[in-house]
Each structure stands twice: as C-alpha cells, then as structure tokens.
C-alpha cells in the first residue's frame, strides 16, 4: 500500500429494498456491525465516526445519536450533509482524519428506512425542499424536474436523445440482474424506459432512482493501523471536491458542472487518468446525472456516452464497466447510504468479491458522488493494495 495513504479496511451494506420493521438507527447499527466484522475490528477499536443525515429520523446531531444508539464513545464524531455527495465526502474526510494522525479507525455509516418509514409522497415532498424557497419551489419543482431542466439543456447542446438517456438505465439494470441483493432485477429495454410513466419531461419513471430502505458502512484506517485488520486493504489513492452552486437557478452553467474539477483533482492526486480506471461507480440519481458525469469526468467525449452505452460500453467486458451493483436506479437508494453503496461496490470489485458481476482483475476503481442539482461533487480513486 502507498505510504501515508488511508486504507479502506471494512465495507458492508445491509439488505436493501423494502424492509418492513426497519428503523433508521437500526440500519445504521446493522451496517456498522457488518463493516466492523468485515474489518475484523471491535466497536472499541473505532476512534472516529462520521454520519450523514436522515429523513425518517432527522436530528441536528446525527453522529451523537448514532454513537449513543450503538454504544460507543469515540474521540471524534461529526455529521456531514451534502446530499448525494455525502458518501464520498465522508470517505474523503475520514481519510484526512487518519492521514493527519487524529484517528486510527474511522467508521463511516449511513442508512435510512426511506421507503417503509416515509411513504413515496413524503419522500418526494421532502426531497423537493432542496429547491430555492422563494425562486424555485413556488413554480412546482421537484428534484426530477430540476434534473430534467439540465437534461433538456444538455440534449440541446450535445445532440443527446431520450434513447441515450435510457441506455444508462438499461446498463444499470443489466448489472442488477446479476446481483442477488438488488431491489430491481427484471431486465428492461430502451423501449421499456421510453414507455414508462412521464415524471418531468424528458425524464420518465425508469430514468429515476429508486426509493429504498437500507444502510451501508465502511471503516477507513491509518496505514499502520490497517495491518491489524482482516481484509486485503484497498487504498484511497486520491480524492477531490468541487461545489459550484446549490440552486439550479444560480448555477454558472446548465451543461458544465463541478464533477470535471473534482474528478481532475482525484485523478491528479492518484497519479492516474480516466483511461486507467477498470471499474467506475458513479452517482446515478437519474439517467441524465450519469450521462453528464461520464462525459464531464472524461470517460467519454461530449455526446458519446449514450451511443457507447447502447453498444455495451458500461457492461462487463465494455470500455468502462459502470455501476456494477446496479446503482441507484436498480440496486437501491437509501439517502446518504445510496452514495455509500457505490463505495462498498468499488471495494468489493477491488477485492475480487463481486461474484457474477466481477470485473476481472480490477485494480483501479473510480467513485463519484453528486449532491443537489449537480451542485456538490466528490470523486475518489481507489486501488487494490
């Protein structure tokens, strides 16, 4: 492993989908326990905790709430809230804590029973609150509507078609079919996506992520502390962030977003380039999110990702196997845990644990999270040690 660089020593997620009887903190505790067991560590070994946010059990101090519930009193704890970028930002922050010598083993944990604990209508309403209270929400925006505005602008500028968007959903589902844990495992076609219920044009139901119950956790360790753990370590080779706006009405551009800079930072720190990456797990709240990020980060030229995906570029054996667990559109989306599912999958790929969906000899993985309306971005490059 690289000297001085943080190591991911534990990674796990709970069952996902519709989990009757689950609670937000129960999912946190289950995921944390699984990640600790994966690392071969005990709760008392954890000296740092990073939590995110919850819709079903919101609290001003979620990290304190979790530590109390789980029965640990770490030397450091904090909660991070940056929407879909939260998962990657937690990993970046945890790595900074261990690399600075402040912590030895940081537990990163998130979970929510967003499906059974909230109702679909309440989830949609709660999410729409990211809109500007005076200059967006009065016009009836939802998160899908805001991403749809990006979609039409991007399609207009780069000749992207609804079929190209649909190809993102089909690619995710193709992977999910191979993943026994995925929430949606019935194969779909481009025609199925185009025939699904319109939500906010051009986005249709199958262009959108799921609403799920579930939790995920990772342990990030200092390089010397990682020697005490059970698994083949995965090193965080580079991370980067960029925020350009919060509200779409104030975004500097509708076709260029911060993912380009956040990824460039992560690649530069890791000393690699997009073409070196063997497997990518990229935030896919909507088909357009994934398409824009694939092209902005540099994996594909502008306007190229859709046609490439239609030709299987995102599948196993393709140019860039992407969202091999099924992503937010077919695996699951449980709030901040949704972004952590991408990280957990990257770790599994690098350890060679991904079974039927394994990318052969995957040594370098890229993970990206996006919060708000392509507002906050965080990118990670992970490597097999």
């Amino acid at each position, binding site marked *: 492993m690289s000297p001085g660089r943080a190591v991911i020593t534990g990674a796990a997620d709970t069952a996902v989908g519709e989990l009757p009887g689950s609670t937000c903190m129960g999912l946190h505790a289950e995921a944390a326990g699984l990640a600790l067991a994966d690392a071969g560590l005990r709760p008392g070994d954890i000296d740092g905790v990073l939590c995110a946010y919850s819709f079903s059990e919101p609290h001003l101090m979620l990290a304190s709430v979790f530590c109390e519930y789980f029965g640990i009193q770490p030397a450091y704890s904090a909660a991070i809230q940056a929407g879909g970028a939260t998962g990657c930002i937690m990993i970046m922050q945890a790595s900074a804590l261990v690399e600075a010598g402040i912590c030895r083993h940081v537990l990163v944990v998130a979970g929510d029973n967003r499906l059974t604990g909230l109702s679909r209508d309440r989830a*949609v309403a709660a999410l729409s609150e990211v809109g*500007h209270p*005076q200059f967006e929400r009065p*016009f*009836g925006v939802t998160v899908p509507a805001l991403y749809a505005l990006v979609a*039409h602008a991007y399609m207009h500028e780069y000749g992207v078609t609804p079929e190209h968007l649909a190809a993102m959903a089909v690619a995710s589902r193709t992977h999910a079919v191979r993943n026994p844990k995925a929430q949606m495992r019935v194969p779909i076609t481009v025609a199925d996506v185009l025939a699904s219920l*319109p*939500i*906010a044009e051009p986005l249709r139901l199958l262009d959108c992520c799921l609403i799920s119950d579930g939790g995920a956790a990772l342990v990030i360790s200092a390089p010397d502390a990682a020697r005490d753990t059970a698994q083949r370590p995965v090193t965080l080779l580079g991370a980067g962030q960029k925020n350009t706006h919060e509200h779409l009405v104030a975004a500097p551009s509708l076709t260029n977003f911060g993912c380009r800079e956040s990824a460039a930072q992560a690649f530069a720190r890791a000393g690699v380039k997009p073409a070196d990456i063997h497997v990518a797990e990229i935030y896919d709240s909507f088909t357009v999110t994934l398409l824009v990020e694939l092209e902005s980060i540099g994996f594909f030229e502008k306007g190229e990702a859709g046609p490439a995906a239609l030709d299987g570029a995102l599948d196993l054996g393709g140019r860039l196997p992407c969202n091999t667990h099924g992503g937010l559109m077919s695996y699951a989306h449980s709030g901040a845990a949704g972004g952590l599912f991408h990280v957990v999958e990257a770790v599994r790929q690098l350890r060679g644990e991904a079974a039927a969906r394994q990318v052969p000899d995957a040594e370098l993985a890229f993970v990206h999270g996006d919060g708000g309306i392509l507002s906050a971005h965080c990118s990670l490059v992970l490597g097999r040690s």
Partner: protein
Amino acid sequence: MAEDPARLLPVPNADTAPFWEGAARGELRLQRCAACGQAQFPPRAICVHCHAPAPAWEAASGRGRLVSHTRVHRPPSPAFKPDLPYVVALVALEEGPRIMVNLRGVAAAEPRIGGALRIRFGPPGGAHIIALPYAEEDPVQR
C-alpha cells in the same frame, strides 16, 4: 396557477422584499452592483461577482430567452395537481441573470430553447401580496 396555501408562497425577507414589491406592481426587478456594474439574481446582500455590499435595485427589461424547460407530470405536493401537466422553465434575462418561471400559452405548448420570452406576473395574493412571475412568448423581440 391556482391559489393554495400548501404551495408555500414566498415569504419575503430583507434580501428579497424589493423583488416581491416590484412583482406585485407587475415590474421585474434585478440587483445591479454600483462597483462592478454586473446584474445578479437571486437577490443577495452583497454582489456575487465582486462582493461589494448592498447592490442597488433597478427595473429590468422583462425580456429573455428560453434556456431549458420541463413539463412536470408528478408534482411535489397535491397542491400542484390541478395544474398538471405544467411547464417549469429557466429563462436567461437580457440583463444576464437566469430566472425560473412557469411557461404559459404557446411558449408552454411548444417550448423552444432560444425562443424569445417576456416575463409577466400573476395577480398579487396571499398574506405577503405575492405575484409570481411567469413567461409567455414575446412576438416583439427578435
């Protein structure tokens, strides 16, 4: 759009009150910085371009062009259901900043990116006398 308290009509604050006062009179207002000359929206206590304090308010042309649009079929709350499907749009104002509105008329039926639009206002209403802006086709503008 129908009147309904569940729509959470804007509650003006010190940053935004001049905008909504103008809106209630049918006037689109923007801030312009005396130091650097740039216009901005949404309103702020400082200039987002040069960070000088207290940008001044001015009446805007109300002219702009369509940047993007979406026809919404699934609303954020039941209060918007009577209007389904409705069109949300981003309009680039002639002065530079972008504004979000609903489209009406021909502009809503056949939205065309780059098409000329004019910002209008609905009837003022509610506890804070709010008139929401909307946009319609502008046959005069070329």
